[in-house]
């Protein structure tokens, strides 16, 4: 059934990938770039991911966010479904394995497959090890890190690129694993960014010229910014990104930040996983400075504001505050 297999070393965990089709393994291993510095470090556990590619006659254009899930309490299984059933994934908490059945047409989704087939299932298993996944960018400045959490399209990549131009280092552009060890730490997910042509145009000075392209293109961040990538960082602040055309940042009460973050990070699954996720994110919000951020390319003000907050040198700044 599975003629092909590959192995990925992710965050000290080994993922054994098995498939009847080599192409899906190429996509997952090539586009889903996790920090190779972990190679040959100590390994905490291993997981098996079985992927069955089936022929179909669908046409999939732009990868969409359509997604449903259901947890089976009897079987201790989480069923995930994407793209109107073109991708079906079962996460088995007892066997700690993943079984994915995907249509051949879904291979056109490229790097998005990494998120669906690898990140989400892996995130479920890693909760047992005290590691919690959120969709966020994470940037570091002089030893302090800030999380920028928001849905896809809310500007995480734009903020990452904008702050890197101001001297910040990048821990993650889109996917972060968090853990608590006295303080809270963020570990970078894949060293990739999914970037639209519109965003690319705003940062031609650092990304270079490119021809127009549809949808989003995946870029390997370490190829562009090898000296600005960091493996992990101590979390100081959390910004919840709000879509809008203004430049403003407001402090959030921890419970408001928690409610928003939880709705972003939340996947109702195995009750113990859900319980520990709830506990972890609540503690994170209690122990961070929390903000709501709306940014429209005013990185000078954002940089100045964050430096004031991180290093406690109050002064007036250009960003308005409600």
């Amino acid at each position, binding site marked *: 059934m599975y003629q092909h297999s590959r192995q990925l070393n992710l965050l000290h965990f080994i993922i054994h990938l098995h498939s009847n089709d080599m192409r899906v393994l190429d996509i997952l291993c090539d586009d889903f770039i996790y920090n190779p510095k972990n190679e040959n470090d100590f390994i905490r556990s291993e997981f098996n991911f079985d992927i069955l590619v089936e022929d179909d006659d669908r046409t999939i254009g732009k990868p969409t966010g359509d997604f449903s899930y259901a947890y089976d309490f009897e079987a201790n299984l989480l069923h995930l479904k994407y793209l109107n059933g073109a991708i079906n994934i079962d996460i088995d908490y007892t066997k700690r394995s993943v079984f994915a059945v995907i249509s051949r047409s879904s291979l056109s989704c490229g790097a998005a497959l990494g998120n669906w087939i690898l990140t989400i299932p892996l995130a479920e298993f890693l909760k047992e090890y005290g590691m919690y996944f959120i969709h966020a960018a994470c940037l570091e400045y002089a030893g302090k890190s800030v999380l920028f959490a928001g849905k896809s399209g809310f500007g995480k990549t734009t903020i990452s690129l904008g702050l890197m131009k101001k001297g910040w280092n990048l821990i993650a552009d889109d996917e972060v694993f968090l853990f608590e060890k006295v303080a809270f730490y963020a570990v970078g997910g894949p060293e990739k960014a999914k970037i639209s042509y519109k965003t690319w145009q705003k940062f031609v000075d650092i990304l270079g010229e490119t021809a127009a392209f549809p949808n989003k293109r995946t870029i390997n961040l370490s190829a562009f910014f090898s000296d600005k990538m960091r493996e992990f960082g101590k979390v100081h602040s959390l910004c919840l990104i709000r879509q809008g055309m203004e430049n403003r940042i407001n402090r959030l009460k921890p*419970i408001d930040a928690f409610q928003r973050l*939880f709705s972003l990070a939340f996947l*109702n699954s195995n009750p113990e996983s859900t319980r520990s996720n*709830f506990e972890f994110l*609540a503690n994170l*919000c209690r122990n961070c400075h929390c903000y709501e951020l709306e940014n429209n390319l005013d990185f000078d003000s954002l940089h100045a504001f964050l430096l004031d907050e991180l290093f406690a040198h109050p002064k007036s700044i250009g960003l308005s505050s409600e």
Partner: protein
Amino acid sequence: MGAHKRADEIEWKMFDDESLLLNVRTGYYFRLNAVGSFIWSSLDGNRSDDEIVRLIADAFETTSEQARNDYRAFIAELVEEKLILNA
């Protein structure tokens, strides 16, 4: 009135005087204000409803009648959402 206790599948976190409740089976979550959080934290199954009403009246400086009415209305909502059980 008798006594009530929090259902086992409810996880909850206090933030200052507010709290967030999560049903870990359904995934539904609820936010409680200061009075709701006070009542919720009192629902340990050991205190009777009458005792909690007295605590509310003392803590929020209201009449016993007002506290009892508010408590009954709140408890009815919690029961409806299956967040509490009869102790």
